[in-house]
């Protein structure tokens, strides 16, 4: 598929266009077209164009409050997540210590847990009757922001970490040798070099926070609403499509502004020198960073620990009975199929979805990292970020009203769920792989070309040796996202092959100590599976290194 001849410019352009067509077609079909369909229903309420109703919605005081809350909760959560996550990214990607891979895998787990379960676990900690009840955090905005940070630290650690790994430490060492203090080195050498990675991570985290749905509903009770929960209510309960369209347009505007901002930052950065040197073992000077990392890991594991404890208990009795029950359909047949079937379904769907998003995402990352692209590639990069910033409700309902006729009668197809999940994971792949590819000095490729290497050979000898870590990280990430995905899945039609998050949601939505215990046990299984997958991906790359 990548048989491009960029020996001659026109052929090069043709090849690029052909390559771009594949992910673009997927984006148009599975995102822009459905979302456009929903917006059209809002702008043409009775079949005639009536933008007045949409404008009227934007004047509502409630909409202003909702917009304000969305912005400040997402900005503060992003800020905190980046601040907290950076030292962890350093410790886990620039130092080598025993158990590092395990910690790396653990850090990702929160990101994939279904929000309803984490919400319940979080609230059990901070509710007045919980161990942290005295802090009075239950139902406050602080609790919402803390939960958003909890979910997104892993995005910062992984995206920035993958980037950090590839930066040559010799420049920092040179600065230090010339008498710069560690703080000066950080400020003048490390952070500027890291900036593209940080901006990349921050924009993804911001979009996740601004469109978070379960967290705001669960943690905020009904005192707080963001644009996403409001679209959900307007669409699924009030059927006020004009209102929902107005808010969706607002979402798109926010994303466009954000992307324009991050593109400016990125444009001002230069390629980075590479190093293939092994990362060092920690020294005494790294103690603060390691302590910080340990603290963050404790914060991330606290709700998980309460899940594990709850999963080992049924009523007053302790033991593994909840895990044994996962092979059954629950108390009084709460489920149609055993929970273990849900796990198998999830794994199968995640495999398809992650391969799909890796394929499409790598193509996009490859295209946007070409230095010659200029504005076109900026636009391409922005387009593929859109799925993160637009409401899952709008996309889900959009699928139903647009993909409804042959040859595109896909709305009840079993493929729709992996496709929807791949669209969610795609921006993450682009954001993980893109910055790394972009940081390659194009002169290396030119040198290879002038020495007679064809484009495929250039890709294999210049791009791939640098990018394979990021590619594997992206694959693992996409797999994990798909395993835990619930938002888009829940708005699409499901057949009777539920995924594990759907099973958990169903169990926790029924009374009964056994069902509750099973929901907790199933969540622990989901978390463990995710961690195992991430761990395996990290191990795998050692073997693949020999292949290049």
């Amino acid at each position, binding site marked *: 598929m990548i048989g491009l001849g960029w020996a001659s410019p026109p052929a090069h352009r043709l090849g690029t266009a052909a390559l771009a*067509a*594949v992910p*673009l*077609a*997927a984006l*148009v*079909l599975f995102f822009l*077209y459905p979302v*456009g*369909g929903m917006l059209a*229903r809002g702008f*043409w309420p009775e079949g005639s164009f009536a933008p007045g109703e949409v404008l009227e919605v934007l004047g509502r005081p409630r909409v202003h409050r909702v917009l304000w809350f969305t912005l400040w909760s997402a900005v503060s959560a992003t800020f905190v997540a980046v601040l907290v996550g950076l030292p962890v990214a350093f410790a886990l990607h620039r130092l080598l210590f025993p158990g590092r891979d395990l910690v790396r895998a653990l850090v990702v787990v929160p990101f994939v847990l279904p929000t*309803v379960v984490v919400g*319940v676990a979080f*609230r*059990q900690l901070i*509710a*007045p*009757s919980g161990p942290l009840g005295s802090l009075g955090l239950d139902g406050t905005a602080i609790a919402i922001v803390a939960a958003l940070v909890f979910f997104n630290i892993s995005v910062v650690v992984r995206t920035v970490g993958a980037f950090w790994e590839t930066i040559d430490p010799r420049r920092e060492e040179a600065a230090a040798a010339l008498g710069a203090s560690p703080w000066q080195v950080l400020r003048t050498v490390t952070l500027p070099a890291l900036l593209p990675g940080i901006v990349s991570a921050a924009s993804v985290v911001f979009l996740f926070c601004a469109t978070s749905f379960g967290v705001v*509903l669960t943690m905020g*009770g*009904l*005192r707080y609403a963001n644009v996403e929960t409001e679209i959900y209510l307007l*669409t*699924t*309960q*009030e*059927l006020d499509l004009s209102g929902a369209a107005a808010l969706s347009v607002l979402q798109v505007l926010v994303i466009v502004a954000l992307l324009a901002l991050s593109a400016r930052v990125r444009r001002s950065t230069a390629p980075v020198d590479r190093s293939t040197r092994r990362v060092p073992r920690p020294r005494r000077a790294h103690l603060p960073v390691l302590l910080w990392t340990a603290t963050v890991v404790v914060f991330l594991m606290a709700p998980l620990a309460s899940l594990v404890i709850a999963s080992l208990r049924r*009523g007053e009795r302790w033991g593994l009975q909840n895990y044994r029950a996962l092979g059954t359909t629950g*108390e*009084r*047949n709460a*489920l149609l199929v055993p929970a273990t079937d849900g796990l198998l379904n999830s794994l199968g769907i995640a495999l398809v979805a992650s391969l*799909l998003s890796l*394929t*499409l995402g790598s193509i996009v990352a490859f295209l946007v990292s070409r230095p010659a692209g200029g504005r076109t590639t900026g636009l391409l990069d922005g387009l593929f970020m859109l799925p993160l910033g637009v409401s899952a409700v709008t996309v889900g*309902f959009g699928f*139903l*009203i647009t993909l409804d006729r042959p*040859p*595109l*009668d896909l*709305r*009840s*197809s079993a*493929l729709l769920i992996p*496709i929807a999940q791949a669209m969610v994971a795609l921006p993450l792949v682009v954001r993980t792989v893109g910055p790394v590819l972009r940081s390659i000095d194009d002169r290396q490729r030119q040198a290879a070309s002038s020495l007679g290497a064809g484009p495929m050979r250039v890709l294999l000898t210049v791009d791939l040796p640098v990018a394979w870590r990021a590619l594997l990280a992206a694959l693992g990430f996409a797999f994990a996202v798909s395993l835990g995905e619930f938002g888009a899945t*829940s*708005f699409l*039609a499901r*057949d*009777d092959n539920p995924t594990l998050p759907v099973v958990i949601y*169903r169990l926790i*939505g*029924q*009374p009964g*100590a056994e*069902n*509750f*215990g099973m929901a907790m046990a199933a969540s622990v299984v989901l978390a463990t599976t995710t961690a195992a997958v991430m761990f395996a991906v990290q191990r795998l790359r050692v073997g693949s290194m020999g292949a290049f």
Partner: protein
Amino acid sequence: MRQPMRPSAPRSVVCSLLAVSLLSGCGSSASSGEGDPKTLTVVTHDSWNMSKEVLGQFKAETGITVKVQPQGDAGQLTNKLVLTKNSPLADGVYGIDNSFASRAVDENVLASYDSKALPDSAEEFRLAGDGADRLTPVDYGDVCVNVDDTWFADKKLPAPMTLEDLTKPAYKDLFVTPGATTSSPGLAFLLATISAEGDDWPDFWKKLMANGAKVTSGWTDAYEVDFTAGGGKGDRPIVTSYSSSPPFTVPEGETQPTTHALLDTCFRQVEYAGVLKGAENPAGMEKFIDFMLGREFQEALPDNMYVYPVDRSATLPESWAEFAPVAPNPFLVDAVEISANRTEWLRAWRDITSR
């Protein structure tokens, strides 16, 4: 058609690209058996949970295979049907309840079908007006305030009995309910108060909130985190749930539940089935509606979906008869009235509870 964003490539090209990348052909959808009288697609709410044996019975009787597709809660389900009425999602629907029934009827998504299988005892559940022959009642459930008997016994406090009791100082800070805008039992509880208090319901809610009522977004939060007898051992012994919840609180090795439902606080939710307009297999759905009213399906309802059969002569499981009695005089609000006022009520309610 207004289609602001058409695929840029011709569909056939897109399809062949996808066929390669997705290892599958386009249009491999459920409705591939177009007009096939041997398959039937039914969209339902997420609580659908009928055992495969019962559906197998339907297949044995009629030769029709039922494909079930859950589509969200009753509100989402109804709204999806309204949005897709020009090319229906399925042949039939099950799970529209009385709070959304009028929207489905008014928006004309349903074909008429008056099942001869509806028992006389179920006539009371039939909708009034246009809906009477569009939606067939299948089951019902009561949303009631539940109390933790163990907690009240420990505190030597008599448990509340009525809605008014919840505003009394003795029960300050003890009540938790899911919100009406985000939860179906939450909406049912709001409707119970509207039915009980009439136009004064906003005052009742102000008193309720002043008495420390806690509002969560969903049932799970209220029951599994804040309720003292739920999974999280919370600190509130009064919760909005179902009249069918108490049997779940029988501790292992014992025979008595630790909670009970207050039968004077209940709102009745009736769930309906109907044939969708434009269905490919309307005759199959009609047969399925008749089957849902038959004894086997009706008697399987309590154990599988925790609701009561509309057929009063159906036998209930023993524990239900004992621990999950239905409310003798539940609160009711007419479906047409709910449909006309829902948005206004919910906005007023939201203003009171988020103050």
